[in-house]
């Protein structure tokens, strides 16, 4: 098992190496001179030269690359072109918002998708199965921004039961400590603010979670149906076990395996989807930060956020694979 984890960790190294090259190229092969871009079109040449020197752009490419990797290993992602703030610092201010949103969306997708998939699998070809199939088809076909805008219109503009955008009502004035608002509000002893931030979370989480919800529902349904036809399920029934036990212990324990893999794969989609969701709902997270950076041509921020998202994605997949191995004795003991 430990061997397996080590092997998986070693396997990530070439990917990280490749990633660093691509992201390095992203900045250094940019059309135009980054220094000139930072300073604007009409900057004086000597200022541009000074900037080039400061950024290390006058060094040979290989040395620039080594510096870049060295900085990365020290946890230094550079400074924003635009406001000269540390990218890492800004990232950690924004990141909790994205984590909150992503986890809420994942909880929505998993919490609803697995029961729906099991329900659909219970009676294949029935009305409920057909209904769930259609819901999951629409789920994968409706873009986040279309769903998000529709939810905003119905629940915020028309019904006024949920807030349309933002993470919390700014008038509530909660002190930020962790930047996880659900935690900060509790730390501040403000249940009203906690509920308010929770209410702000509902619509974005649904919009972001709809695609994973559809995918998890489908895979759960298929997986449960597959396992239901396995010989060992018949064995379990032949032993005189109750249906509840056959379902919970013999079917679900096996049906989980592909579902877990798919849940892991959704994390990448959720992070990418967060970029759009945060834009729709004016949600202050990494995604919105990236979009602002694109508008401002703030390349270090774009580069770094792509790097961090990829790191998170790799890490989550590693965790999922290890979790899978724990659930599946055929891998655990080999």
């Amino acid at each position, binding site marked *: 098992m430990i061997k397996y984890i080590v092997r998986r960790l070693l396997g990530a190294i*070439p*990917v990280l190496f*490749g*990633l660093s090259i*691509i992201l390095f190229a*992203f900045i250094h*092969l*940019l*059309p135009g001179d980054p220094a000139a871009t930072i300073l604007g079109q009409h900057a004086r040449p000597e200022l541009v030269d000074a900037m080039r020197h400061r950024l290390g752009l006058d060094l040979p490419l290989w040395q620039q690359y080594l510096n870049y990797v060295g900085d990365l290993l020290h946890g230094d992602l550079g400074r924003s072109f635009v406001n000269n703030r540390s990218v890492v610092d800004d990232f950690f201010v924004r990141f909790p918002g994205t984590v909150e949103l992503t986890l809420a969306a994942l909880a929505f997708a998993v919490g609803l998708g697995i029961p729906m998939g099991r329900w659909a699998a219970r009676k*294949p070809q029935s009305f409920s199965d057909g209904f769930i199939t259609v819901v999951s*088809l*629409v789920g*994968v*076909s*409706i*873009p*986040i*921004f*279309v769903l998000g*805008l*529709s939810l*905003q*219109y119905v629940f915020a*503009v028309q019904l006024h039961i949920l807030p349309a955008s933002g993470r919390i009502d700014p008038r509530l004035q909660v002190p930020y400590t962790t930047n996880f608002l659900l935690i900060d509000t509790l730390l501040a002893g403000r249940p009203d603010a906690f509920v308010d931030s929770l209410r702000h979370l509902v619509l974005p989480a649904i919009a972001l979670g709809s695609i994973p919800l559809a995918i998890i529902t489908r895979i759960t349904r298929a997986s449960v*149906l597959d396992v239901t036809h396995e010989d060992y399920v018949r064995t379990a029934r032949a032993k005189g076990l109750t249906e509840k036990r056959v379902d919970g212990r013999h079917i679900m324990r096996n049906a989980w395996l592909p579902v877990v893999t798919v849940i892991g794969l959704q994390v*990448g*989609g959720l*992070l*990418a*989807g967060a*970029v*759009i969701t945060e*834009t*729709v709902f004016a949600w202050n997270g990494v995604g919105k930060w*990236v*979009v602002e950076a*694109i*508008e401002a*041509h703030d*390349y270090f921020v*774009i580069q770094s956020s*792509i790097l961090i*998202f*990829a790191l998170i*994605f*790799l890490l989550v997949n590693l965790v999922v694979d290890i979790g899978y191995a724990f659930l599946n004795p055929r891998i655990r003991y080999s």
Partner: protein
Amino acid sequence: MATKAATPATVRVPVESRASRGLWRDALVRLRRNRPALVGLACIAIFVFVAFFAPWLAQYDPNKGGLGKTFEPPSAAHWAGLDKLGRDELTRVMYGARISLVVGVVSVTVGLTIGGLVGAIAGGVGGRIDTILMRITDVFLAIPGILLAIGIVAWLGQGLVQIMIAVAVANAPIFARILRGSLLSLREAEFVTAARSVGASRTRLLLRHMLPNALTALIVAATLALATAIIDVAGLGFLGLGPPDPRTAEWGTMLTDSTEALRRAPWLIFAPGIAIVISAIGFNLLGDGLRESLDPRLKR
């Protein structure tokens, strides 16, 4: 006489169950019986028809403003209402289909070509080349979906060609993985072993026996990718990374505009929103149908 009677029956060649007319014909027969896939095909047909004949179907000029009040609600003259410049929303959605269709098809085709080549080389040649190509693929796969496209457009600058490249590059590694995967599993298939045992050359084995069979998975993936591509293109447009000319009728860009007027003119979400959903549903349904038709074992 006795000997003749002794034979219990004349030897009879077993009739093969509905003589197979080849993989593709059989798949077509199954596809025609697959109702969801036909619904999908109908959605796609509408989408393609509108894209092709937008200038004849639409009653107005997509860029001509001031057709009425700005943000005029839907009426008999303007079924989907007017936008912020008083342009006909329905006309713009029809013209938007052209961009979505062209960008979607081109980007998926390019992605399919690049990814297919990489996958075929990796899965066909194997060894160190396979390892290197798959590592590179892994790097691209590590960057989540549309984020890669966003990065590429941010890097290359705005423009339709750039969007096509971005979506193609985001899709290519997926295609490479799929093709390589099916080639690897086919390598162990009995009919390939059989072909190898009668001395088929490596190239012939790959081109004649393995690729045609591996292509089925790729075709399914490409169909489903068209749905994603249309959504991604609109997503880029929504993020302000659409065509550089803000007047271009593009579904995602139109939705961004409608965000600004969500309270005043909520109907502006509907036309482009429904257009995206219908075309995505079409390709998703067709993709699922193709999967079931091409691989009958999956059918339950």
